[in-house]
């Protein structure tokens, strides 16, 4: 068999997500009154990148067969923090950005410690820490407000050379420095191994605990990138419970649409990013076809359901029914 077939098979989920997104986005722009213009793409990109970053955060953990229900809260917390400290001069804003990212990292460390070394179930542990993180966000911003260092915000939400949306370029940069090295590192490999079969990984001498811990830490970091970007888009901080909850749930939806298996062990952050962009485009599609926005949740739900059905078709091949229960 040729080399390509194996590569194709291993990246099927990611490639499908990219293909679906391209088709949907083509339908969207061709029906948009303004057409495929830089402005249309920029608006879509800024909305999509927010969810893409949170979906990426979720991917790190889902690959290890875990789940992080605190990603939305980490995003909101770091958004509130950024609205205080990413201000003033260029130097103080830079230090502020570092502080925001370190805070996200710290949130991930806390999640990792509780889940791996406290041996709590990821769902319960991250619901609890998520509530705590949101509580901190409320203390930071009891009412929406604050500011952000606008040169960076303008640059990252604007266009480069008046054509390419800067947010997409920034997202590509994050993928290049965070995801690509990770997926090719031993710790990244270990994360896939743990998600696919924890016992086989352990028996092969893979550092199981470290792999899971690192996944939660990276999840916190990526979620704080989301929080930072949210600040750049809104120029303020807001402890919004709605944001925390929807971003958490949508991140799981994006991960599934992006071909990342919730059972762990397969998929990529690139797939999840396109899953996120796809999920955002669904809403936009309704807009260009002049459908009532009230239809949006129902339509998104149906698309998600269809994606999950496709993803679980393997169930029909199981010959020992006991294997149906993970």
């Amino acid at each position, binding site marked *: *068999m040729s*080399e390509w077939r*194996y*590569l194709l*098979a*291993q990246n099927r989920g990611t490639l499908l997500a990219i293909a679906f997104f391209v088709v949907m986005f083509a339908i969207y722009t061709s029906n948009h009154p303004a057409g495929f213009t830089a402005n249309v793409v920029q608006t879509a990109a800024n909305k999509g990148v927010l969810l893409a970053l949170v979906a990426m955060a979720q991917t790190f953990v889902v690959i290890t067969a875990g789940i992080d229900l605190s990603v939305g809260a980490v995003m909101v917390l770091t958004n509130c923090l950024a609205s205080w400290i990413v201000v003033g001069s260029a130097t103080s804003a830079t230090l502020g950005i570092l502080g925001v990212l370190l805070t996200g990292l710290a949130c991930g460390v806390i999640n990792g410690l509780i889940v791996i070394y406290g041996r709590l179930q990821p769902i319960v542990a991250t619901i609890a820490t998520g509530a705590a993180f949101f509580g901190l966000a409320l203390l930071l911003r009891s009412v929406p407000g604050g500011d952000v260092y606008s040169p960076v915000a303008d640059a990252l939400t604007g266009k480069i050379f008046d054509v390419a949306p800067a947010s997409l370029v920034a997202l590509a940069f994050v993928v290049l420095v965070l995801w690509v*090295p990770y997926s*090719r*590192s*031993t710790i990244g*490999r270990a994360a*896939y*191994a743990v*998600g*696919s*079969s924890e*016992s*086989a*990984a*352990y*028996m*092969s*001498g*893979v*550092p199981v605990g470290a792999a899971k811990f690192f996944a939660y830490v990276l999840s916190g970091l990526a979620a704080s990138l989301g929080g930072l970007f949210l600040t750049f888009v809104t120029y303020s901080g807001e402890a919004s419970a709605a944001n925390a909850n929807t971003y958490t749930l949508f991140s799981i939806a994006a991960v599934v649409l992006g071909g990342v*298996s919730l059972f762990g*062990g*397969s998929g990529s952050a690139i797939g999840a990013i396109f899953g996120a962009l796809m999920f955002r485009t669904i809403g936009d599609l309704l807009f260009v076809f002049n459908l009532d926005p009230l239809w949006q949740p129902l339509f998104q739900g149906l698309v998600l359901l269809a994606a999950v059905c496709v993803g679980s078709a393997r169930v029909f091949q*199981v*010959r*020992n*029914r*006991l294997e149906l229960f993970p």
Partner: protein
Amino acid sequence: MNGAESTASPILRMEGVSKRYGGVRALADANLTVFAGRIHAILGENGAGKSTLIKILSGVVAQDSGRIVLDGAEVAFDSPAAANRAGIVCIFQELSLVPDLSVADNIAISNPPRRFGMIDRRAQRRLAEEALDRAGAPEIHPMALVKDLALSRRQMVEIAKALARKPRLLILDEATSALTAADVAKVFVVLKRLRQEGLALLYISHRMHEIAELADESTVFRNGANVATYLAGTKTDNEVIEMMIGREYSHIFPPKPVARAKAQTPLFEVRNLNWADRLRDISFTADAGEIVGLGGLDGQGQRELLLALFGVLRGVSGEIRVAGAPASPSSPHAAKGKRIGMALIPEDRKTEGLMLPMSVRENLSFAALQRVSKGGIIDRARETKLVGELMDLLEIHAAGTDIPAGSLSGGNQQKVVIAKWLMAEPRIILLNDPTRGIDVGTKQEIYALLRRLADQGAAIVFYTTDYDELIGCCDRALVLYDGAIRRELAGAEITEHALIASALNISSEDVAAGATAQ
């Protein structure tokens, strides 16, 4: 022992190693000496301590006492990774491959080649190709996903993975059981070459002809201890079997009824059952009043057979008849229904038998809720009455019916699992190794109960890994080997000798010769 080997210094020595699991003694003062450049076979029946020995050597569990000496220095491994670093690599029976990763990823999993901190895929690929080549399976593509490979291919990947770790002591635990004959031949060439290269090999197998072909010396284990070590070719198959036998009979079994005439239509009949390539053309009957034992070494298809009968497996072909009428259950729910009336006492009471946090009463009525409910509402008074009757019948010692099942002792938990199925009033009772890990007193009670149920007209199919139970408890015994019934023994034919010989798939002439020698 013999003098020839005292000149070379051993690569590994285990001295007085013991290990207990709860009340069960798995290894008792075991000794083993392994030399480089030799293939050392380990023999023993189920529960002789072979797998515990391997687990200790490969760092999966720690011994309670005793020393492991590697190259003259005492070692202790706290994880498989630590054992690997010391050069001990084990090929496990249950595969240690990660299904969602590629062959190359798996081969290089614990220490992939790196460049600038990232995995060097090209170097990894070369390493995988080399390893596959050395293992005699160059046709496996290093980019293929492990989950897409057939079982025998996966086993070859497992061997390649072990070789890529450059072991000094390679342990093979039933490593050929999933392989085709052609693969076995290739693997043997590889193993012989490794021996020449100076590796020490520990080879665990129940296939006597493989051991005859490969081993330089063999050690027989019995009851958790080594009983004899001999050079290849110095013992006949029969002498080896004699060494494997020899446990004292510690259980008391109820008397067996005198053989009765066969009924016209047996209560339970299985014809030509096949499933995947794990069950092959299995046919047998179990009459009302009969206890039919399933024997053989672990993992020869006994569990799959019980699951197939109980409707758990998909794609089972063949016929199952109850009282002459076709009755192939489509699910456990259908199997326990009135029309079929089947019960399966599962192997692992903690995961498949009981809901541990739920009460004894709730656990007892799960399989027979239709008996204690009307219109979907559970009749508590009736439930309490039936539960009380069963607890008396099985002498379940619990502080009350509302305490969690998990708080009972192992023996009492097992009785709850059995009682739960008796409440459903089954005609056909399948048991999957029901006495594993429980105390002798409870075992006796279970034997007596099984006989009583048979006398009351049930047909019982009883899989056990304990040969004493096949001999003491069963009217007939079916010995499985490689997914097929290798031999059927009835009445006085069920001897330990016959059971072990057929479990090892030694030809029946040898068995006859052994029987007369006895």
